[in-house]
């Protein structure tokens, strides 16, 4: 739901950079004080290194050119000089002290997450992100968008260049207000992930059992993209992050809209009522496409043996109780979906799987039955 203004901003602000980005050589300056500090420090150290490099390599290559036997050079015999050695130990040390001062200042600034205006709890899952706005009672999963997901499959035959923001687009971006200090709390549900948006200027690991703290005060509205930055398994390369920074009023409007939609959906979705099989299959197909197809493939045939095939599978057509248990609590490679999906979702996706891909169990699973397993 992008406004016209928003679209304009996107075109004016991002088309030129998108075109130039192909040959981007340097770190982004970003849109926060943290990212600007990082950029300035990066340039400082880069220049220090460049100057030292030019001096040292000039001396070396001058020597290589002039002090060669083929030019009749006679070898000198000196092999030590305490003065020179003390100088070239002390000078680099002093340069390092000079670098450490701004670096320390920048680090203290980064680690000061106090007095935040709002907090978002970010939980990494294999392979998606969950965002929970602690003050605003908003929460949702965010994963790779369907266009990228289709195109990235091995042998998809689709040209990635034809997909807008290939691998850097999600279904639900994380919306934040500009001009507010937002605190990000990162944790994970399974393995370690890392939440990184370069324009915000930091990355922070999401670790099971730990809650890490970081913050950003974004100054300009815009869409800022990033990716998971810690190897987290097979689809590590496919869990992007999209931050949508909006003016505070637009942010408030987004929160209101989110809640209104959720309330409307809840009305239709009563887990207590009896659901028709067709209803469950239709809803289950949506859940399957969004949550299961990455590993089990759109047609249930499984991707390159990374997950069991669901077509005629013994487990999927086996005892219902075992199947519910497996989907909710996982085992080995199978992820636990109990915490991620509602009773309706689980009932629907199981019903769908037992009655699709050539499977024909002919039965259905009611949400109330799933509730018994919680």
């Amino acid at each position, binding site marked *: 739901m992008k406004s016209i203004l928003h679209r304009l901003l996107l075109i004016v602000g991002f088309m030129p950079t998108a075109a130039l*980005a192909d040959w981007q050589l340097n770190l982004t300056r970003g849109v926060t004080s943290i990212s600007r500090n990082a950029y300035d420090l990066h340039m400082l150290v880069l220049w220090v290194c460049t100057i030292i490099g030019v001096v040292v390599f000039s001396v070396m290559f001058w020597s290589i050119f002039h002090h060669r036997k083929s030019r009749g050079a006679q*070898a000198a015999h000196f092999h030590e000089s305490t003065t020179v050695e003390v100088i070239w130990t002390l000078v680099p040390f002093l340069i390092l002290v000079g670098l450490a001062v701004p670096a320390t200042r920048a680090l203290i600034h980064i680690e000061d997450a106090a007095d935040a205006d709002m907090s978002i709890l970010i939980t990494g899952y294999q392979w998606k992100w969950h965002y929970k706005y602690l003050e605003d009672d908003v929460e949702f999963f965010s994963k790779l968008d369907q266009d990228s997901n289709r195109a990235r499959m091995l*042998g998809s035959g689709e040209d990635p260049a034809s997909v807008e923001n290939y691998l850097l687009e999600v279904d639900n971006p994380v919306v934040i207000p500009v001009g507010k200090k937002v605190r990000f709390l990162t944790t994970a549900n399974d393995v370690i992930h890392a939440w990184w948006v370069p324009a915000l200027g930091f990355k922070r*690991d999401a670790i099971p059992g730990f809650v890490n703290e970081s913050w950003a005060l974004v100054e300009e509205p815009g869409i800022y993209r990033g990716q*998971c*930055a810690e190897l987290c398994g097979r689809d590590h390369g496919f869990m992007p992050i999209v931050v949508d920074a909006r003016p505070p009023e637009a942010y408030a409007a987004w929160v209101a809209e989110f809640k209104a939609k959720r309330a409307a959906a809840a009305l239709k979705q009563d887990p207590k009522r009896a659901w028709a099989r067709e209803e469950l299959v239709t809803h289950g197909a949506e859940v399957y496409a969004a949550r299961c197809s990455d590993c089990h493939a759109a047609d249930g045939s499984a991707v390159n043996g990374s997950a069991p095939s669901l077509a005629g599978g013994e487990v999927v057509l086996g005892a219902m109780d075992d199947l519910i248990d497996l989907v909710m609590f996982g085992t080995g490679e199978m992820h636990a979906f109990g915490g991620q999906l509602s009773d309706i979702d689980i009932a629907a996706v199981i019903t769908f799987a037992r009655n699709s891909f050539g499977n024909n169990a002919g039965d259905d699973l009611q949400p109330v039955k799933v509730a018994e397993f919680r």
Partner: protein
Amino acid sequence: MSHAAAHADHHEHHHGPAKGIGRWLYTTNHKDIGTMYMVFALIMFFIGGAMAMVIRAELFQPGLQLVDPQFFNSMTTMHALVMIFGAVMPAFVGLANWMVPVMIGAPDMALPRLNNWSFWIMPFAFLLLLSTLFLPGGAPAGGWTMYAPLVLQTGEAFPFLILAVHMMGISSVLGAINIIATIFNMRAPGLTYMKLPLFVWTWIITAFLLITSIPVLAGAVTMLLTDKYFGTSFFNAAGGGDPVMFQHIFWFFGHPEVYIMILPAFGIVSAIIPTFARKPLFGYESMVYATASIAFLSFIVWAHHMFTVGMPLAGELFFMYTTVLIAVPTGVKVFNWVATMWRGSMTFETPMLFALGFVVLFTIGGFSGLMLGVTPVDFQYHDTYFVVAHFHYVLVTGAVFSIMAATYYWLPKWTGHMYDERLGKLHFWSSVITVNILFFPQHFLGLAGMPRRIPDYAVQFTDFNMISSIGGFAFGLSQLLFLAVVIKCVRGGEKATDRVWEGAEGLEWTLPSPAPYHSFTTPPIVR
């Protein structure tokens, strides 16, 4: 140094090498074992290189064309394990086996039977590791760093991985013990510590790093094993454990490990540059002290590999300061090499070319290392291609270039033949050009925001990835030249003199070329 007794043992060939395969299986001869280490390392270099080719082929363009993401992750994991534990480390141990006894005037290593054993563990360790490629579920894919909890999701390959790492570790520790025992006890009369060639010095320090750090790795992987199979929760947060603790333990091994792979390289370059500059090494004593300082610092910088885990501010500051401090002794080394060249009388045979390539390109890797040490910016660089570029500059154009320099330098002494200088120079120039095409653009990719260890990427990263892949294929092909030079030199060639290089100094050059099967059975007197 003098070499009064150098040729005294020339006629004492009462027994030479045994015949057939038995010579290699049962040998306790340091030269045979050194050769086996080197050949093993070369084979692993090509196996690990083939995996790198798969990686670069998949990354040639966006989209998945060739391999499944899980297999891609296996390739990055196995490439690192094979190159680190199979190629670079055994190559340095092989060089130590061959050269340390002849550099210190000893007849053999102090513990010859142990020496045989530490080599023969290696092929079996790698048989275990490489066999995982054929297991259901595939080879380990959690990264060579084996971070918990991800590595615990490994399937049947998991125990193979752990046991292989254990075996490599045992081999390395035994090798290190042997090297220390040899240098401490078997130096020629008069060869005091401050007269030792720098290669010997760097290996003393490396051996201590190995003995100190490898058992820590062994502890870490054992805890992984019990977490997986015996119900412990060392690294499982749900059981009261701590996933970050694994990273602390691993990098307490891991950072000394990266110096294990570079200190012997410093020793090699410190041998080669004086030879071809025809001028003694500048600042010998400060080189020794700088090496020792680097080794000491390597134990108190480990957490700079994990700045993003969320440490307290004081911890981040401590590790930032100690990390950038390493630049001081490393700088001293580079300055000393340049001062050694200064007003020398230089010639540029292949070993010298590789040594000079090392000095320039390793220094570039050092610069990016300094940048990575600055914590507030590391939060941007961490786990991107900038890091990949950094450690390939120090490991490929650093460690691997030094091993190649050493091979060209000592090959005439080993085989008795001069290698083909024209082919050697061709190998150097094709390597040095292509390796920069391969790794330099990766700095740009990292700065532009491309994470490492991903099989597919956003389209704006396409151009530099293509350039990098083309450089990668060309660098891979260039190494076939190296193989050709070595094989050609072993088979024959111009007869090498004893001294081989005009400016060469040290006991190894007092031996005939090829070095006899048993050398220095009577110790030389060093004055």
